[in-house]
């Protein structure tokens, strides 16, 4: 049985129908063709399928697609704005937080959900917020550093071949 739902995907309104038993991951990848979101286990254990639903990071493989009706979903494809990478995306490149890259989209989404709620997280808050996102390659340290650098307001220009902060912007503290 199919059902039609309406929701916001990467800030655009969308109407789509899909089988009622489908997960959000299936909807995103198989029907909408957004393959940035990965399916490393499809059982809620790896975090590679992480997307943001109404501000919270969720494993899209564990959520029914029809349950996003009326809600707002952000995937990794929604991070870039007009060709400009999100500061987290820049920081992940600049700090060496990427190796194979399979965990990266999910990591970015969990990191974004964290920073949106808590712009200057401590190391232990970062650890907790990312504890559902596995990475087998990096040992996590560079991922922590990347998120901390964004928290600290460092902006990187990753296109000029230079691996350093080009700007130190002091974020207003509220």
């Amino acid at each position, binding site marked *: 049985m199919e059902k039609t739902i309406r929701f916001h995907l990467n800030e655009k309104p969308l109407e789509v129908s899909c089988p009622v038993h489908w997960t959000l991951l299936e909807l995103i990848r198989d029907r909408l063709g*957004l*393959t*940035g*979101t*990965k*399916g*490393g*286990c*499809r*059982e809620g*254990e*790896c975090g*590679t399928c992480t997307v943001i639903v109404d501000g919270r990071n969720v494993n899209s493989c564990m959520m029914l697609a029809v349950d996003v009706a009326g809600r707002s979903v952000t*995937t*990794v*494809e929604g*991070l*870039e704005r007009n060709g400009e*990478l999100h500061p987290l*995306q*820049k920081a*992940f*490149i*600049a*700090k*060496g937080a*990427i*190796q*194979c*890259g*399979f*965990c*990266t*989209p999910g990591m*970015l989404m969990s990191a974004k959900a964290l920073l949106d709620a808590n712009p200057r997280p401590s190391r232990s808050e*970062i*650890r*907790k917020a*990312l*504890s*559902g*996102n*596995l*990475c*087998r*390659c*990096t*040992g*996590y*340290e*560079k*991922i*922590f550093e990347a998120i901390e650098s964004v928290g600290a307001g460092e902006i990187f220009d*990753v296109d000029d*071949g*230079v*691996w350093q902060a080009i700007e130190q912007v002091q974020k207003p503290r509220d």
Partner: protein
Amino acid sequence: MPQFNVIGTSPPRLDGREKVLGQAPFIADVPIPGCWVGGVVASPVPHGRIRAIVRDPAFDWSRVVFVDAASLPCRNFVHMVRDDFPILAEEKVTFVTQAVALVAGPDRATVDEALRHVTVDIEPLPAVFSVDEALKGEVVVWGEDNVIDEYRIDRGDVKKAFAEADLVVEGDYATGLHEQLYLENQGMAAIPRDDGSLEIVGSMQCPYYVQGALEQALGLAPERLRVKPCVTGGGFGGKEDYPSVLALWTAVLALKSGRPVRILYERGQDLQSTPKRHPSTTRIRTAVRRDGTITGLEIELRFNGGAFTTLSRVVQQRGMLHCQGAYRIANVAIHSLTVATNMVPSGAYRGFGAPQGLFAIERHMDRIARELALDPLDVRLKNIVDEGDTFPCGQKLKGVFARQVLERAAELSGYRKKRALYAQGSEGPLRRGIGLSVAFHGGGFTGSGEATMGTVVRIDYDGAFSLHVSSTDMGQGALTVLPMIAAEALGLRPDEIAAPRPDTAVCPNSGPTVASRTTMYVGRVVTEACKALIDELRTFLAYQEGISPRAIAFTKGALHCRSRSWTVAQAARARCDAQGPFSVEGRLPQEAAACFNLDRFEGEAYRSYAWIAQAVEVAVNVDTYEVKPLEATIVAEIGRAIHPVLVEGQIAGGFLQALGWSHIEDLTVTPEGRFSADQLNAYLIPTTLDTPQWHIDVMEEPCDVGAYGAKGLGELPMNGAAPAALSAVENATGVFGTEIPLTGEKLFRLIEAQGGTER
């Protein structure tokens, strides 16, 4: 210290942008029009005789294609070290999940339905899962006696050493299965082309291994077998041999159906059916003087190879050539066996046999210290290998930095003070401990492998430079580091050299992406190609200027004659404008490869060794038996850090895999012959909550082989973290673990047997 422009800087990795955008094409993401789905009929039993493969007529079999051994359109083997691994089981199955037949259909649901309508009628046979059982010979899995390979090294007079010893210290050690757990599951697709050729795309480390396996089984010429790796989501050895199996399955289904066919493993299937690190058992006897000097060493090293050879022979060789540890011992007898059992064939995993042997010897050093009431660090320093010492295979060593890394790790971690302090115990449930280890890894193929490999790379110029290798970037950064090496050699910026993903229709064979050989050996061959490029440009410019090529020098990244100079980019442009696009190749000079006699196990096992010492500090909760890593001090001597940020990433990532193996990554074989984990929640790997504070210190002592002195790095951090962690647990609790993973349950039993931890 030479001055570099590019080497030693850390530019953003070239695939970073596509990866953060979610646009990096992994095999599951690639659109393949009209692609069918492949599925595997897998043996449910570990050992048995196939009586019949029964297809239920209730299913309409015209909806799918079906292949079993009898209807295979090709020779039935997957070419690896031996050709014993069948594409599909013929008369017997010898492990659970072994493929008996294949199905392909238009979609997942149809294929699943077809698979539900196949029954394999198997007469079960008794099965063996451990080396000890298999060696009894009552159940024959492989060959006549289940012994896949056996090697010996004998050096000096071991008998005499034991006769004269103050003390003989003996120990038994064991390591468990270890799953690579690349986050991207295995996946492969075969696309038949109109001209009868096949294109293979998928997740893999070694495109030319895949092509070779297809060529041998299908009998097609290599030009008709085009292999193109997608972005590979982690490998760690797990995508060295198995992709050849998947490629053959999809190829057979594609040929049979005339359509593209893709097989994407789900996590449970990947856990259950792909190769793991060989479980091992090691028995060590040492003849020791009272001051801790080891005068004689006997090692019996046994690997559980599972049902077929796959890569076991080479894993075993490497294990054997590392198992004596970083020590100078005159009298040595090493005997090693790989034994077949009814387990999924074991395969490659970062370290490739070395971590198993090093675990045993490093724990044994701690045991010697314990028996002599010495500090483990002192026993190590007493025996540590130095410049000019000889390894058991008779190799006189150059470029040895074992002592330096060990002393530095001890110093940076505050080892001595902490070890003494923590040994006194403490109140409360949390006990701290620190332990250390020293290890090494031989870069490149074992023995003469690099000499026979024939590594080739090519640089093309058609208005822009591109560097072509068959080395895949599975996350380690090969396709960032190799162009950096070329940029340095040519006086260019790294972004002036494209390094596309391999495609066997385009790239030469620079060998498989394994054995910590890519930066070191392939990188070296890149520098050779750069030399060839300079020569080519020199000849062209000389001709143009009407002077002798010898009148043109290449210095400071530019070509000069008396009156003019050209950057490499300018010269290449001029050459291209005048004569069209051109290419140069680089090859490995013979003197850069080791020379080894494999029959006698004698000679230069590896041209260079990288060295590592690791001090691990843990907190053991003696109420919950949880071991929490607190700090890791890692000192590695790697020749040259081409890209320091990637180096740190390799070290931290490898260390954490080894740490996981030491205490939480627990995988066993059930009585039915299955692996104990079907899902990730049954096989835990370290999360963000399980990482220590890192102190990574890199030493650079350039070797004369690798690119700009680089030694092999990828596998090094896998060697030695596990024994250091167990030594830390010993320091914290007093118990001496000999087996990994030292799970909470095993730790509980050891502590109970010791009568608690009160001291």
